């Protein structure tokens, strides 16, 4: 088996988590997020005064988003060990995870477009900024599906030596549930359910990145265990 390739793909989670956070936080200055309650002029001023950091931050976010694809692949390979030939949950994981990557990329494109010509009218900058944040945080359904199928696959493991511990399955279900409030940002500009609020930003952001770390640790363990089995190809 290709232990090294799998480990490399699993390790992709770490540069993704670190560099994406650097891009969005110290560079772009999107932590906490730009409030949806700000006026067009206030948003435009932020983009005009921080053009270079926002452009650079978005570039870093874009550069690291691709790492997610490799990580999805290694989750899929380990899920396939659970499911066998008719690995429908594995395929659902790849497709939902991939669309999730697209949401990150489109968000980054929108922020880049806003910072690309900061001299244009404030309303347009606000519009692009809105599109970026909504793409980034409202696209919860694919992440919910991704976490749920990973969870169900782990809980349905019939192997004598399960690939993952069962608590990881329940953990994935829980992670999926915490993303559900994200969709409701459409109704609010202030408060805990607005896109800079506790339940749309802080909880999902922390849970999302901790999911990468937890999954990385457990995948690494599963890959090493797989390589120690005598009869796997």
């Amino acid at each position, binding site marked *: 088996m290709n232990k090294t390739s799998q480990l490399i793909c699993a390790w992709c989670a770490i540069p993704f988590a670190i560099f994406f956070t650097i891009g969005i936080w110290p560079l772009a200055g999107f932590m906490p997020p730009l409030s949806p309650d700000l006026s067009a002029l206030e948003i435009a001023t932020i983009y005009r005064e921080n053009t270079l950091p926002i452009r650079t931050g978005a570039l870093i976010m874009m550069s690291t988003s691709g790492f997610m694809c490799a990580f999805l692949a290694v989750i899929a390979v380990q899920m396939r060990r659970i499911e066998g030939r008719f690995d429908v949950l594995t395929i659902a994981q790849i497709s939902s995870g991939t669309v999730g990557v697209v949401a990150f990329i489109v968000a980054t494109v929108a922020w880049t477009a806003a910072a690309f010509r900061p001299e244009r009218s404030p309303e347009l900058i606000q519009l692009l900024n809105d599109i970026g944040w909504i793409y980034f945080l409202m696209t919860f359904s694919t992440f919910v599906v991704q976490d749920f199928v990973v969870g169900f696959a782990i809980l349905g493991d019939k192997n004598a030596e399960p690939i993952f511990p069962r608590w990881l399955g329940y953990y994935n279900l*829980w992670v999926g549930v915490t993303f559900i409030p994200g969709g409701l940002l459409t109704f609010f500009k202030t408060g805990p*359910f607005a896109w800079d609020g506790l339940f749309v930003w802080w909880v999902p952001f922390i849970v999302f990145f901790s999911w990468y770390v937890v999954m990385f640790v457990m995948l690494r363990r599963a890959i090493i265990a797989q390589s120690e089995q005598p009869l796997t190809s």
Partner: protein
Amino acid sequence: MSSVELPQAARIHLPGETGVWVFILGDMLMFALLFAVFIYYRSQDVGLFAGSQLTLNQTFGAFNTLLLLSSSWFVALGINAARKSLGKISARYFAATFCCALAFVVVKVFEYGEKFNAGIAITTNDFYMYYFMLTGIHLIHVVIGMGVLTFLWHTARSAELNEKNINVLESGASFWHMVDILWIVLFALFYLLR
């Protein structure tokens, strides 16, 4: 842990498998945050929250509480029957639990409908934002729970009731008890808190 044999009385029986408690405790943590945020914002504008609370339909709320309390009782009876290897009876209790859950959803649909007809929506004010958000997230749990209950019903009816399967049943029942207890807190916070 297995090397040290504890006396029977000192062992604590954790219902269900250990892993399910990762979900239950994590979910309760999430709801605890939601409750804390609600109480904080309520304290900032008690007048608005207390005033809006009067427009809630207490009858619907109380009836739903009764439904979920009964459902918890049924699910516990179902587990008891399963432990005595009475699979058919156990399955009937789980079906009764499911009916309570379904009735809860129907009542909630009428309750939401009544609000919408009165022109009240999630954007009306802060109280109704929390009301729709928290009861809505809870309702999603009830619907997920109905899936879990269907699974319990199926397991009790058709699977051999060995230790492993009873453990599975207990895991599902523990989830359902969580759905119930979260509603009881919601009911107190939204309908009763003065």
